[in-house]
């Protein structure tokens, strides 16, 4: 983290653009003669500020884009009155949330009621810090980055329960119970899929996991973890679990409006509700960022000749695609019931994710080539097809015979 001389032109190249605020702050403070510790602290604050600025504006933009894309899927135009194509709609929403009266129920625990929204936003922002966004830009390059991510992510579930309990009324309590049971059940397959990646890459450090996915097979197929047999299954499972972790449709039972008012967020209004909203979307960014890092090769380019494009553009492009797929899924699928949800997690996702572990091991020890594919694919496909057939037969409704109508 040494300060560079002002004549260093590469400081302003596109690849280094995300680092610019941090380097500028460090340079300015060093030239002013500040102490070493102050310079590094200020540098870290600048890096954190960059992450926050990028993701908070992405959150605002996403709230508008989500509404417009959902609208297009429903044959209507989204918000288009607030500015050119509705671009000022997040501003209008922000003003609305900030000027609303902050109502706390009489039976609520005031301190916990205040604490819960803060505790939801905090882990999401912390988790955003360990993800490698570019070749040169991991705000917090920890050796145990993945472990830190999951540890911090568990705080979200606790915060949801605090929100439900502290509201002091029935709907939030029920919603919070459902929310934590859902999040805990889907956390297991999430971590087991991540375990496969850790096994193959041999490290918990996220920047190094991305570097392990460099290179190309056959000249043009990238060596991402998604394009391996176990990675395909693990990546798909990770994708489904991340939808469930972020409480999004079709797994948004805790906050579905027609089911339980707003679940754990019922008794929150104004800025606290905005913080819940923000925590949910930032958590979505964090977990999709992690999925991209683990399975989609992070900031690696998809084709050999495209290295001139800065790496963080690849990362954010992949993030945009993943988020678009989340929106598409939200527009398409109905909500699952709580029993269907739990059955799916425990009876389908966990066995399949457990299968990816020996599959990853076998793939690695048979040389990671064509032979590995031939051996690993049946190991994964056969149990899936058998399980699916059992589920289809057991859970599909029987054909009805109408005795009197025919």
């Amino acid at each position, binding site marked *: 983290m040494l300060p560079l001389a002002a004549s260093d032109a590469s400081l302003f190249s596109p690849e280094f653009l995300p680092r610019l605020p941090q380097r500028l702050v460090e340079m300015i403070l060093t030239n002013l003669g500040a102490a070493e510790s102050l310079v590094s602290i200020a540098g870290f604050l600048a890096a954190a500020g960059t992450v926050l600025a990028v993701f908070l504006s992405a959150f605002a933009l996403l709230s508008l884009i989500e509404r417009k*894309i959902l609208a*297009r*899927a*429903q*044959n*209507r*135009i989204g918000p288009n009155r607030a500015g050119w194509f509705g671009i000022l709609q997040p501003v209008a929403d922000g003003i609305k949330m900030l000027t609303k009266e902050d109502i706390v129920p009489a039976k609520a625990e005031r301190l916990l009621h205040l604490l819960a929204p803060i505790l939801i936003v905090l882990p999401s922002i912390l988790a955003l810090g360990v993800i490698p966004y570019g070749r040169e830009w991991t705000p917090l390059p920890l050796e145990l980055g993945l472990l830190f991510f999951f540890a911090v992510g568990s705080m979200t579930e606790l915060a949801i329960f605090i929100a439900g309990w502290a509201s002091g009324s029935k709907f939030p309590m029920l919603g919070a119970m459902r929310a934590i049971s859902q999040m805990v059940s889907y956390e297991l397959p999430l971590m087991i899929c991540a375990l496969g990646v850790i096994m193959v890459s041999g490290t918990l450090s996220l920047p190094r996991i991305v570097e392990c996915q460099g290179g190309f097979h056959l000249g043009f197929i990238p060596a991402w973890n998604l394009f391996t047999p176990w990675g395909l299954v693990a990546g798909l499972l990770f994708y489904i679990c991340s939808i469930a972790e972020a409480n999004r449709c079709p797994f948004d039972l805790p906050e579905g409006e027609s089911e339980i008012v707003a679940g754990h967020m019922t008794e929150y209004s104004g800025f606290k509700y905005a913080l819940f909203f923000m925590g949910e979307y930032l958590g979505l960014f964090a977990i999709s960022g992690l999925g991209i890092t683990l399975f989609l090769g992070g900031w690696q380019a998809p084709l050999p000749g495209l290295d001139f494009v800065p790496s963080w553009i690849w990362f954010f492009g992949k993030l945009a695609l993943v988020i678009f797929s989340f929106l*598409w*899924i939200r*527009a*398409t*699928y109905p909500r699952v019931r709580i029993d269907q949800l739990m059955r799916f997690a425990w009876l389908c996702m966990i066995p399949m994710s457990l299968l990816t572990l020996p599959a990853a091991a076998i793939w690695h020890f048979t040389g990671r080539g064509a032979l590995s594919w031939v051996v690993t694919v049946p190991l994964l496909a056969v149990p899936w*097809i058998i399980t*699916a*057939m059992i*589920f*289809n037969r057991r859970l599909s409704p029987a054909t009805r015979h109408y005795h009197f109508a025919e």
Partner: protein
Amino acid sequence: MKLPGMGLLEGLAVTGRNMIGSFYKKERMTTVQYPEERAPISPNFRNFPFLVYDGDPKTGLRCTACAICEKECPPQCIYIVLERDENGKSLKRPKVFDIDLSVCMNCGICAEVCPFDSIYMDGEYELSTDDRFGGLLFGLDRLSKSAEYHMKLRPEQASAVMARRKADEEKKAAAAAAKLAKARADAEAKKAAGQEKGGEA
């Protein structure tokens, strides 16, 4: 064989078609952006009544203030005052014709019973006002609209009315012409008979 999970992809294809098609296909984007655009109203839509005039709003008004609509109106929202000259003779047009829109229930009975094709149901719905009492009391100036407006609003009904009125006029003209011809023929015959008599005498 249908693999498990194929239905999910078919669902995604349906919404995907909607998403892409909404940009260039009219049937996948049915939003009418009010107030810049208006949805077309159907020919049978009726709102509040209006009075028809042919040509001039003062002299071409078809209404003769017979007050049948005033009598037949169920909530009695019409108020008519006949215009009389100095001698008290009726001039067959209304001096005052008020409809209270806050009372009118858009039933259309006034249009059904009018014998002079003069009151019909309008299709205007943007009538909001902030004056609860006077703003919804429509007088003769706001109720009179031209026959061309009627034609544009309800082409079928208006053309049927115009055709019927034209046929009636032609029949009347033909009857008047026949009467005139008959009178002229009678006068001719009388003159011929008188000449003969005069010639003989």
